[in-house]
């Protein structure tokens, strides 16, 4: 992104349009899922929270995959934009994971009568929340931009590597979570609703990520102007 000393970068028009479209699609797909599908044989209407819960969980993990990707790219290219991108994804991911856990808890209550179970998926999700809370805490305590980027990258990558290990170990430890409906055992209409919501949530996530990244770039552009005054010349961010 080129920054000239005259004007700060503006959010590209297409991102705003994309955002509006994705929100509309999101609302539509949720409405379809909530009102357009029949209740589940066994679970009744409570099953419908899964149309929010599963996509939320999906994009939460997508966010953390993005953190890992951004971290690797930063260590490779040493371009601070990758660090900013990873941090934006981590913030989003942490919020989404918290929401996912709350939704999972809300679903567990009428289904199994408990607010919390130690099942693999819920537990792994809670652990990832803690890992990324640590990531964000480390960032907030580290002032130097370059050191913060390096350290975050290391913590982000190592945290991501732990996900499958946590998953398997918790699974061996305890398995009472409902077996995930595979595509064979789900009626077409359920499947369509799931996949649709998965897709719209993903689009919405991309919009949020781009916006958050843009805000971070604005901050850096402000910094760059300070740098120009300090050293002289036009700075490209």
């Amino acid at each position: 992104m080129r920054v000239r000393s005259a004007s700060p970068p503006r959010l590209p028009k297409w991102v705003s349009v994309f955002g509006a479209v994705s929100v509309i699609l999101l609302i539509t797909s949720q409405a379809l899922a909530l009102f357009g599908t029949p209740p589940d044989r066994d679970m009744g209407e409570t099953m419908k929270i899964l149309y929010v819960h599963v996509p939320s969980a999906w994009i939460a993990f997508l966010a953390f995959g993005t953190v890992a990707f951004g971290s690797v790219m930063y260590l490779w290219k040493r371009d601070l934009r990758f660090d900013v991108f990873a941090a934006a994804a981590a913030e989003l991911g942490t919020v989404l994971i918290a929401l996912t856990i709350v939704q999972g808890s809300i679903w567990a209550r009428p289904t199994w009568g408990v607010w919390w179970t130690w099942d693999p998926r819920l537990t792994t999700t809670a652990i990832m929340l803690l890992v990324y809370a640590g990531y964000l805490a480390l960032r907030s305590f580290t002032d130097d931009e370059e050191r913060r980027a390096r350290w975050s990258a290391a913590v982000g990558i190592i945290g991501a590597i732990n996900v499958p290990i946590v998953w398997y170990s918790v699974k061996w430890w305890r398995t009472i979570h409902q077996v995930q409906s595979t595509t064979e055992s789900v009626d077409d209409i359920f499947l369509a609703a799931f996949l649709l919501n998965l897709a719209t949530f993903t689009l919405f996530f991309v919009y949020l990520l781009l916006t958050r990244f843009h805000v971070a770039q604005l901050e850096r552009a402000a910094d760059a102007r300070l740098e120009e005054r300090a050293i002289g010349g036009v700075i490209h961010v």
Partner: protein
Amino acid sequence: MSWRREWSRIRAIVWKDLTAERRTKANFNAVLFFAVLTLMLFGFAFGPDTETTRSAAAGIIWLTILFAGVLSFNRSYEQELEGGSLDALLLYPGERRSIFIGKLLANLGFVLLVEGIMVPAAGLLYQLPLGRAPGRIALVLLLGSIGFVTLGTFYAAMASRVRAREVLLPLLLFPMLIPLLLGAVQSTAALLGGDLMGNAGSWIRLLVVFDVIFIAVCLLAFDHVIEE
């Protein structure tokens, strides 16, 4: 890079850390007493019924190791930061990874020494049949400690240099240790109970996998983390 030179550097760091520790002993004593104190606190929290505490013993032992051990990792770097010797360490020619390996081994020695006293103490407090499978219990202690110390030494390289280091280190470290905690506690509990289901073996394998993966990952990432 020559292996012999690096091995000499690693040995130098281990020697230096352990010698400095041996001279003061203050840290070792404090950590050891804290470990015993924690064991007793757990006893008060879960007791006095012997059956209850005995069934929770594996968990109690490993949580005590974690809580006591985490106190020692920041100290490993603080001694470098106090005198400005971290700069000197970083300026020597050679692999910076050797600093990590050296500190890891020194911390491992420290932690194992604490365990060597604390685990028998737990055996006495909670009436545990440690003699049932002493070799394999020792193996679990070793494998669990290796993973713990590896990640602890790694994260302390960062935490020791920022504010709120006392809370930041456990916050970063403990979520990462959960698979290790599960593996160590499950295998220890199984071994103490006679391992009727034969589960200990699979959990021990998990510990080995965990250790191998994170030793490799931390070795790769250390250079990026130890720089100023």
